[in-house]
């Protein structure tokens, strides 16, 4: 299985898959002096989660990158497929880096990028 964005293949060299953050808070309680060192004097609360994110580092052709950029500005949702079997309907949240290398031939047509996808709807 390979990595793709809306059916377009991406050449991915690094893949960060931190779980989505949960709604979560830790609140300080007025302490019970008899249990100060034995039990936590806080309350944990939270239900639900934020959206899933996937950060991908890799490269693609300039033409493919133009498509990514267009999708980014328009907020278009497409299916993101990752080679570990994960998939979700996603939009591009941000580009952390995007660079072209000096040179000639094939390398001159490549864009090296790091970008973050964010969950658009439910998992597909």
């Amino acid at each position, binding site marked *: 299985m390979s990595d793709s964005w809306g059916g377009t293949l991406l050449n991915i060299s690094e893949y960060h898959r931190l779980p989505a953050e*949960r*709604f*979560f*808070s830790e*609140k*300080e*309680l*007025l*302490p*019970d*002096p*008899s*249990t100060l060192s034995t*039990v*936590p*004097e*806080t*309350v*944990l*609360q*939270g*239900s*639900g989660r934020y959206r899933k994110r996937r950060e991908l580092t890799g490269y693609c052709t300039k033409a493919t990158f133009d498509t990514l950029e267009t999708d980014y500005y328009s*907020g278009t949702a497409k299916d993101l497929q990752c080679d570990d079997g994960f998939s979700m309907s996603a*939009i591009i949240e941000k580009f952390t880096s995007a660079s072209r290398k000096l040179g000639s031939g094939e390398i001159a047509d490549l864009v090296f990028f790091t970008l973050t996808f964010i969950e*658009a*709807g439910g998992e597909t």
Partner: protein
Amino acid sequence: MRPIPSSIRTLLKNKIMLGANGPTQQVILLDKPVGEGLTNAVPAKRIWLSREEDAIAQRCTIEFDNVNPVDHKDPGYYMPYRTNEFTGHIQNEWHFQLIPSKRISVQLGYGSELVDVFLGSIDDVIFNAEPGGYSVTLDCRDLGSILVDDMMIGDDPDEPYWVAFADMDVSNIVKTALLAKGWTSENVTVDLSGLILDIDFERQTVADLIDWAIDVTGYQFYIDENGKAFFVEATDKNPRSSDETFVCTQGEEISLGHWPIVLDSQEVRSAPSGGGTLFTKDTDYTINFSTGKLVPIVGGGIASSSTIYVSYVYAAWVFRHGEDIFRLPYTLSRRNQYGKIVVEGDGESATWEAPSPAWDTRTTSPNRVMFVSKPEATEISECQEIADKMGLDMLRRYGTVEFAAVAVPWLQVGDCIQVIEYSSTVSEIYRIVSVEFEYSPGNAVMTIRAYHFGYSAI
């Protein structure tokens, strides 16, 4: 007081309310059609709810994002005036829905355990557009808003704002006014006051009428979380367990249904409903107020195999340091403390005098006098009873707590609670006079204002 599920008691005291046991909320727009693909659930992000003892109408504010939940590029999804004529917009199921006067219900809780906390209607809708996002804020009041806002309407078309009640019990006057505003008979509970009056009102609201009725009877009025109205004798003994029945054996322990118990609030009798013999603590039985255990004393007046009926006031919830209190200001105030209360009735009067110095050495000037007019009191004993009750109520409000704690949406204004905090040495029973909830998926906090009600063992 509403029963609190035992699973909720365990969950909240374990201090972890996460995931499937996290704070949950449900807001329903009651007038909106539902059906296939349609919902009347408002996607609330934050809810603020306030209930106060003295307010006829209670408030709730609900905030959520004004964006299509399945398309982030579709802002303004909940606008009521959205039409296909505005380029880029498509009229949807929320057309003409989020409009002032539409009815709203709110439930709060944890996981799947939810409880009704509000039934009312929208006063204001604010659609807020900022570069960072779009949101909706609904400002709502409960059904008491009808009583505050609407004039009473009489039968005479020439004088529509003149309403007369002839030879009616004051409580039935209140009930009649509520029925005229749309309450059904089964949703109105009144205690008859015994006070029969002829009275008329002109250009007055039902809230004005209720204020008058409270003044002449001393009763309390409130609308509960389900919209039911109550005009009943004022009591601060909530929650109260009445006539718990036990067949007992001398020397054997009995477990009462609830605890902690307000110190010396118990009545142990040989017959129900305040009848029979009233047994005496430490002569006929012993009682542990903190654990709710009662033991008939061997050789005492409660014979083995006899039935006893036990009534008492208990704390609906125990808030305790290290378990569920976030902060606790404890206030001792003389601002509303008088040296004398003089009740002037119809030709009679009576005076209550504050103890000075009081038990904690504070003093109150005897020349700080509150005069109260109660023309309905015709006997000196009635005047004295009113003065004594007002005096006791005033003394109790000398010590107040206003504390933030883990939200327990089942608690209501009027409930007694126990509060235990180390630094202030607070450990007594308090009575809730106002409660505010702040609710979101990651946050469930309540702020309670309560006054000292009585003592309890810890």
